[in-house]
């Protein structure tokens, strides 16, 4: 019985269907806010759903040079991993007792799988630009994972536990992490790393439509492209939710907390969209230097402050 419950949770709520719908709505918010920043009107609310339905109906082209197993399997694997991360995060937020020891570390690792599948899919596409995109994504992954992990470890050090339940309980009794100096510093680092994790400007180096024509996505068409885009949409839900859980007291669906939860989520999304719209694309060496230099330093300072007790 428990197994059936887990499967339903994974596939429907709070797993695949729920994450996909909310994630696609978030990509609409992203496009609408972008349009308003640029003084345009922007697409209607059903636009991401129309895009997905259209892509599912298009022809699937597999290039002759591609390894079709890796090329077609990897987007599905990435979507499965992103959905799993979303399921874990929603479960611990809605029912903290479903938390298990070390689930913060597990989720942090699952969140890197979509990037790894993109790297493998881009290399398997047989396209030189796809391989270039993969190489860039790999360098970017090495660059941002270190400060991101240290930023989340700041919260873990402060709380003294690896489970989401303890993190949420600590923030309920002692105030949110954003109320402390180390929390604020780690939050800033996490926002920038999230920007790179989601492949947004200024760190959309691996996709770079105007430069390498889509990079890792270049050879995907039809249904696989829809899966790749869904993958990004679900990650768009997962990454802000992880940040909210670690630094801003989590989300809940009871009473007034529904409103504050939605506001927290939209606030983080809007911060990310504004960073995206006010910055040009940086070069890969600039990105690596940015993450290993200033971002690493800030996260290390946050860590030290957390150890001291600020």
């Amino acid at each position: 019985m428990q197994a059936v419950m887990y499967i339903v949770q994974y596939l429907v709520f709070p797993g695949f269907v729920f994450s996909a719908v909310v994630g696609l709505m978030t990509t609409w918010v992203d496009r609408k806010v972008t349009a308003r920043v640029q003084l345009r009107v922007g697409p209607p609310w059903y636009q991401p759903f129309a895009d997905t339905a259209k892509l599912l109906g298009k022809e699937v082209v597999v290039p002759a040079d591609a390894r079709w197993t890796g090329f077609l399997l990897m987007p599905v694997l990435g979507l499965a991993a992103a959905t799993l991360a979303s399921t874990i995060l929603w479960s611990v937020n809605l029912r903290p007792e479903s938390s298990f020891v070390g689930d913060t570390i597990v989720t942090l690792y699952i969140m890197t799988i979509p990037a790894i599948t993109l790297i493998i899919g881009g290399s398997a596409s047989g396209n030189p630009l796809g391989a270039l995109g993969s190489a860039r994504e790999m360098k970017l992954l090495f660059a941002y994972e270190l400060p991101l992990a240290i930023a989340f470890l700041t919260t873990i050090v402060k709380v003294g536990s690896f489970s989401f339940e303890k993190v949420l309980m600590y923030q309920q009794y002692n105030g949110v992490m954003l109320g402390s100096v180390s929390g604020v510093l780690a939050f800033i680092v996490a926002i920038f790393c999230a920007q790179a994790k989601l492949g947004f400007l200024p760190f959309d180096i691996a996709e770079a439509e105007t430069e390498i024509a889509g990079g890792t996505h270049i050879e995907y068409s039809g249904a696989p492209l829809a899966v790749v885009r869904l993958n990004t949409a679900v990650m768009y839900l997962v990454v802000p939710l992880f940040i909210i859980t670690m630094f801003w007291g989590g989300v809940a669906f009871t009473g007034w907390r529904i409103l504050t939860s939605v506001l927290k989520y939209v606030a983080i999304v809007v911060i990310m969209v504004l960073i995206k719209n006010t910055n040009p694309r940086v070069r890969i060496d600039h990105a690596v230097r940015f993450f290993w230099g200033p971002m690493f330093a800030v996260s290390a300072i946050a860590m030290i402050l957390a150890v001291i007790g600020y």
Partner: protein
Amino acid sequence: MSLALKALKKSPWVFHVNTGACNNCDIEILDCLTPRFDVERFGVILVGSVRHADVLLISGPVTQNILPRLKRLYEAAPRPIKVVAIGACGCRCGIFRDAYNAVGPIDKYIPVDAYIPGCPPKPETIISGIVKVLNQL
């Protein structure tokens, strides 16, 4: 009408091919994406790879060098694909008709679904042409 076709009418992604145009039509195509016309209201986005495209916007007379690439681009695009010839050059070679390096209008080599004349065509004309292509579906 199937759901996929209905969705296609709501999100036509365009891919922009220059087959030797003087860049004037290309500027007018980009004008459609600016705040004044904002075709993203109708779900149109300019994509970077032909594998993502639903509509090919082709401008320019076909030059000898671009001809094999144009044929390969058309073959590489996932079906259903629509082709729009933009500008006087795209429709009938324009002023380059007698040029030594222009090998003829686009429809000599690949099927074209709509012709948008003008040198260059106004953004309104381009939008109206794409609407006509979508109504053919």
